[in-house]
């Protein structure tokens, strides 16, 4: 192995059942129920959320998988980029909203 992330390793996701099969089975059942069906959210909406989370969590496996899943549920590049911007702006907002904490502490420290 030459890198920490190998694209071929995505196929081995199912191998997480080694040493803990029952837990993996529970996870994959849950995973399939949440992402693999139309519910209150469509499969496409779920795929776009997952694509945004993939970016926020910086998971290359998930980015590949959910780029494909977005296309296979009929999403288009505009929708996919907007989803990534939602992730980006949430992360920026989370960083910025913490400045309130900084300002609170600043006020306490400054005479």
């Amino acid at each position, binding site marked *: 192995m030459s890198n920490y992330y190998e694209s071929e390793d995505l196929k081995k996701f199912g191998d997480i059942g080694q040493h803990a099969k029952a837990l993996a089975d529970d996870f994959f059942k849950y995973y399939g129920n949440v992402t693999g069906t139309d519910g209150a959210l469509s499969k496409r909406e779920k795929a776009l959320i997952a694509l945004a989370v993939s970016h926020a969590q910086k998971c290359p496996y998930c980015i590949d998988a959910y780029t494909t899943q977005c296309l*296979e549920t009929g999403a288009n590049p505009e929708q996919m980029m907007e989803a990534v911007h939602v992730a980006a702006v949430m992360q920026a907002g989370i960083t910025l909203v913490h400045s309130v904490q900084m300002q609170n502490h600043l006020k306490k420290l400054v005479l």
Partner: protein
Amino acid sequence: MSAVLQIKAIKEKSKYGFEELLRARGIDLPPLSIETLQVNITKLCNQVCRHCHVDASPQRREMLSPEGVAKCLELLEKHPQITKLDITGGAPELHPGFDAFVERAVALGKHVMVRHNLTVQLDGHPQSGESKAYLPKFFAKNRVEVISSLPYHQEYFTDAQRGSGVFRKSMEAMRRLNKVGYGVEGSGLLLNLVYNPVGPYLPAAQAGLEADYKRELRARFGLVFNSLFTITNMPINRFKLHLDKSGQFEAYMEKLLAAFNPAAAAGVMCRSLISVGHDGRIYDCDFNQMLEMDAVDAKRKKLTIFDFDFGRALERPIQFGDHCFGCTAGAGSSCGGATV
């Protein structure tokens, strides 16, 4: 030198074992009927689409001969069981005998479908420059069903697959078809669109995508159509070359294999149609035709339109290959869209 390389049909090795899988699952797929005669009358096309399984282009010259057209009409007349004629290409309208073929098949009472790429209305004949602007009125006069590829309701995917400017021209061609009544409720003139993925992935669910297309095309362009057919890209010829070059062939085959659906297998189109090539040879489908996998009778004799026998054709063992995983993946795929 031509800018377009003609790709010789590549015979597949059965690495993925389509027939073995059918046997292992106890699935038998004999022909059920011959309702549709699909005829590929020319490989000449005004477009060069990146996924085209025919490898059609403006440089191609293959045409069904006048004798071949006459034989197809004779076959249609003789066999009332064959109720539909599906004319494809290339751009079939570029065949010099296209108009007469349509008119005579309609006169025989057959339901005629034309695989019309839309842009030929505006581009005309790529070699002679002959205008094809008359097509909407011609189609309407003969009440043929028009089936047109539009890979997405936006420009980006459409032009990526079918060439720069194709989306804009397709919108104008659809407007001309709508103007003569195609796709308009109550007209009885059918305009159906075809969605192909623009890469090695499976189509989205047909019903949802159709709703998207209808909403977007109406809102943005004021255009209407009847149904959307989702068709999976077959891993053959030009698309296979792309998969090979980009190192995605194996991953795509694995995707198709993992999505094998027995219900889709039961509905494969080769069970109810035969496909005729420009030289009169008969195949189980247009994909087998491009791979030169001839249809054979029970005694392994090749079928042609020149010695056609309905019984022999109906009793033929369908020729399968690994590309057939394309028709059996997910919700299935046929020239009429999803099968499940």
